[in-house]
């Protein structure tokens, strides 16, 4: 029982990192990416490879995962600098679809659909952190650090400039903000953090393959941010808890046959997305129904 709870908590923490990092893009910078799972995946593959080939050190794997994701976030930054709105969403969808093909084809790096099996137990600076409680603590520490960093950044001039760009790009430019640089920075930062989450994920699962990094996963992360509430620190975390607990909560309902539970779960998840957008577009933790 405890083992199960610890597992759920670890998964929630990792998704918390993902949602918080996507919130940087969607909430603070107005970059509506639906390709976040790509960078999650890059981090996971990089982390897993480091653990398997070098040393299963959490810190090293996180750094590697973050670095690889940051490097390749250029693929997202380029369209973000060129287009906005629907065009950017379309570009990120395109990126997501291409990445899935590359993930499943680059057998040498990703193991294809078979994935990477046999990721060793994690250590941290030589200490074994594989016990569930210890690993959860490590993940929580990473999440706390990330939240702290986001809070500090967003309260500073970086955050204010970003939000100015989000609200009106031309006005921000007129005030002398370097829009291109700021946007690139926030994309690199958001994707790098997703990569860190990916590295932790690979240790948690002890197995990674392309099925964890599909469009559906990107949409799930996006839904967590949107349903929870963008541009707030707590919002994405609320979203994570809601969407991860949904399947568990559904098993309370006695009238759903087990074989249909998947479909019913999807139904509620989809309906919640639509209804929230109609009645509470700022999300559950969002302050008002005001603009995003």
């Amino acid at each position, binding site marked *: 029982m405890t083992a199960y709870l610890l597992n759920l908590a670890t998964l929630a923490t990792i998704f918390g990192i993902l949602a918080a990092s996507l919130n940087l893009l*969607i909430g603070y910078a107005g970059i*509506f990416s639906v390709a976040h799972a790509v960078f999650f995946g890059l981090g996971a593959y990089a982390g897993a490879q480091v653990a398997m080939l070098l040393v299963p050190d959490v810190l090293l794997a996180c750094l590697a995962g973050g670095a690889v994701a940051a490097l390749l976030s250029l693929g997202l930054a*380029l*369209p973000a600098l*060129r*287009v*906005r*709105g*629907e*065009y950017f*969403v*379309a*570009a990120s*969808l*395109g*990126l997501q*679809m*291409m990445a*899935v*093909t*590359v993930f*499943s*084809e680059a057998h040498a790096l990703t193991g294809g659909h078979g994935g990477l099996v046999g990721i060793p137990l994690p250590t941290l600076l030589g200490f074994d952190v594989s016990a569930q409680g210890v690993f959860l603590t490590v993940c929580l520490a990473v999440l706390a650090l990330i939240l702290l960093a986001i809070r500090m950044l967003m309260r500073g001039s970086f955050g204010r400039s970003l939000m100015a760009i989000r609200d009106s790009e031309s006005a921000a430019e007129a005030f002398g903000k370097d829009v291109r640089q700021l946007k690139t920075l926030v994309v690199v930062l958001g994707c790098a953090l997703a990569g860190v989450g990916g590295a932790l994920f690979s240790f948690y699962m002890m197995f990674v393959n392309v099925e964890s990094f599909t*469009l559906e996963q990107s*949409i799930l992360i*996006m*839904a967590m941010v*949107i349903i929870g509430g963008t541009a707030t620190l707590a919002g994405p975390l609320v979203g994570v808890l809601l969407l991860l607990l949904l399947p568990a909560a559904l098993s309370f309902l006695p009238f759903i046959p087990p074989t*249909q539970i*998947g*479909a*019913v*779960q*999807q*139904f509620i*998840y*989809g*309906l*919640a*997305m*639509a*209804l929230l*957008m*109609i009645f509470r*577009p700022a999300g559950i933790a969002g302050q008002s*129904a*005001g*603009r*995003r």
Partner: protein
Amino acid sequence: MLFLQLFISGLQTGAIYALTAAGFALIFGATRVFHVAHGATFALAGYAYLACTDAGLPWPAGALAALVLAVAFGLAMDAFIYRPIQRHEGSFFTVFVAAFGMSIVVQSVIELVFGRGFVTVSSALTMARQVAPGIYLADIFWVAAGVAIALFVLVTLFLERTRAGIGLRALSENPELLRAYGLSSRRLSAMAFGLGSALAVPGAILTTMTSGLQPAISHQVMLISLAAAVVGGIGSLRGAALAGLLLGVVENLVIGVLDTQWSAAAGFVVLFAFILFKPSGLFGQAVTR
């Protein structure tokens, strides 16, 4: 010979993409709603046709049922999802999330009703015959091509020659003009959704007969129409149709050169390249709004 064959398969796939993408483009052009639930419309139409055929009804009845359901879904999305959202703010991403949510809902309802398996309607039309050495062609190719061309001509005539059609084109750019003409923007937007959804129906029926349906098809169709609409130039009906055709052909031709794995990604490479290098698309106007 192989390439000619692949090109022909590509045209058939492309004709279906073209019609569906044209519907998406029509809706976007007129209402500026990024209707990502268009794929769900397609899936609903396909399954409606399938259900009628399975019930032993003749094909026109199935086609009619598909049409009715598709149009009804399009109108309902407009009235109950997009309008309420636009009333209080209308950020395009809010609309996107809601529409995506609804397409997940439709997919799960289809799963509950029809199961998750692959389903198809057998038809003599899909059986290919050798028409030239190494070239196989099924009758459905001519059906797809004929229907696509005919519908496209009809829709173009409607948009250019009728009052309502001109109103539709003016809807997004010049609402004042509409008022001067005495046209209701609300009714026109409903018309755009009805017409756009109807354009997904032939593609859905043809797909039911050729490659078959499964609940997840709505996502796939949504991605293709979206890609075609962007490559064609958002809002341009002609562009979307041409881009749909192009994506279908590219997808098939790629298989002649690369491993089959890359076929699905090829369309998105084209999409990504267009966004980076020619965001206005084939026939689009200025992009940053």
